[in-house]
């Protein structure tokens, strides 16, 4: 909108910032008790369009606050580098639909190696492009992780995730809490 000088009255924000705000205000009653004994490890992708290109480090911090709240700080490992300096997954900017599959995967190898070094079994990717790309490179390079959304883990942590809402959970959590 800035690019085209289109005036607008509304404010624009990210759901991730709202999740963080609602947790801080006590409106969203969620914690990581469910994962205390399980100790399932998570990492997270910083989507370029949310972090580096739009809301910056604040969105990265909000995302980490939310994820650590719902999975437990001890169960979260960051990629290196992360936040505003994280690498793009390689699926953005239309790359997933551009048809240059071999190059897209070579690009994604950087992300794959970053994920593998965290040792995490779950990658939270709060962007559909990142989600698809990280799943694809996981299959292609033989990764052993599941890609999921914040909302899936949030609902799991609150005990309200339905049986049919678990496409993005691995076998270890498919029936958890049902």
């Amino acid at each position, binding site marked *: *909108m800035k690019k*085209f000088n*289109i*005036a*607008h*009255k*509304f*404010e*624009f*924000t*990210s*759901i*991730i910032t*709202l*999740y963080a705000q*609602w947790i801080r205000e006590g*409106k*969203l009653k969620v914690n990581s008790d469910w994962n205390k004994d399980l100790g399932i490890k998570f990492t997270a992708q910083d989507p*370029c369009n*949310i972090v*580096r*290109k739009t809301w910056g480090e604040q969105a990265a911090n909000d995302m980490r606050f939310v994820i650590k709240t719902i999975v437990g700080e001890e169960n979260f490992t960051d990629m290196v580098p992360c936040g*505003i*300096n994280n*690498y*793009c997954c*390689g*699926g*953005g*900017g*239309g*790359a*997933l*639909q*551009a*048809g*240059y599959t071999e*190059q*897209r995967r*070579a*690009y*994604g*190898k*950087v*992300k794959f190696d970053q994920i593998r070094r965290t040792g995490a079994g779950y990658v939270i990717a*709060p962007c*559909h492009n990142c989600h698809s790309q990280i799943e694809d490179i996981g299959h292609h390079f033989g990764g052993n992780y599941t890609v999921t*959304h*914040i*909302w899936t883990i*949030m*609902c799991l942590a*609150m005990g*309200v*995730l*339905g049986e*049919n*809402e678990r*496409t*993005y959970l691995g076998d270890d959590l498919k029936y958890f809490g049902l």
Partner: protein
Amino acid sequence: MSLPIEINELAPEFKELVKERVPSANFDLCLTCGTCTAGCPASELFDMDPRKLVRMLVLGMDEEIRKTPWAWVCTMCARCTNGCPMAVDIPKLVYNMRNSWPREKRPKGILGSCDQHIRTGNAMGVPTEDFVWTVEDVAEEIRDTQPQFKDLKVTVDRKGALMAINQNSREPVTEPDELSPLWKILHLVGADWTYPSVMWGGENYCLFLADEEGWRYILEEFVVHIDETLKCPLVVNTE
């Protein structure tokens, strides 16, 4: 085999064109330090990297720049610009390289999604009535089968709601059950929200296609709908 570049025959016309559109792009300030290239996962793909691209631009190797498919494997992620000591705007250069391709020659996958978005308001081309039907159907099932959410409300175009929330079109089309977790969170915090029926898709393939007209059209339609029809003070981008 590498060949010497015949500088005398080259005039950096493409550089001038992009500079006109992006006056702050700073191409002439490039120090060739290579910070961009060292931190770019697309370096070496199609025998290209960001530093090389800027050198080619400055030298006026316009033909090579206009035809390299690297324009479509660079994701315009902006990590290069973020690290650049001289704020050279490589993503905007790549955007303009994409824009210089004849529209019909640009990648079909992106082109198709952009066209669908212009036509239907979402990249998957779902008619609005199908979107509304899916949303209502999924909400009803939750209300009927999950007693805790028997009062769950999901609305489209509810005027005066505090938040208008966009939705990636993948969920309603291919995995409608994935719509529910977000709704449940919104319900539990008592959020006052609605989906807009106009340009509701959260994706933006016309930006990726570098289709200025299409991109602008989508934004304008969206802004008018939110500001004038729904009067929602807050727009929320979802996961």
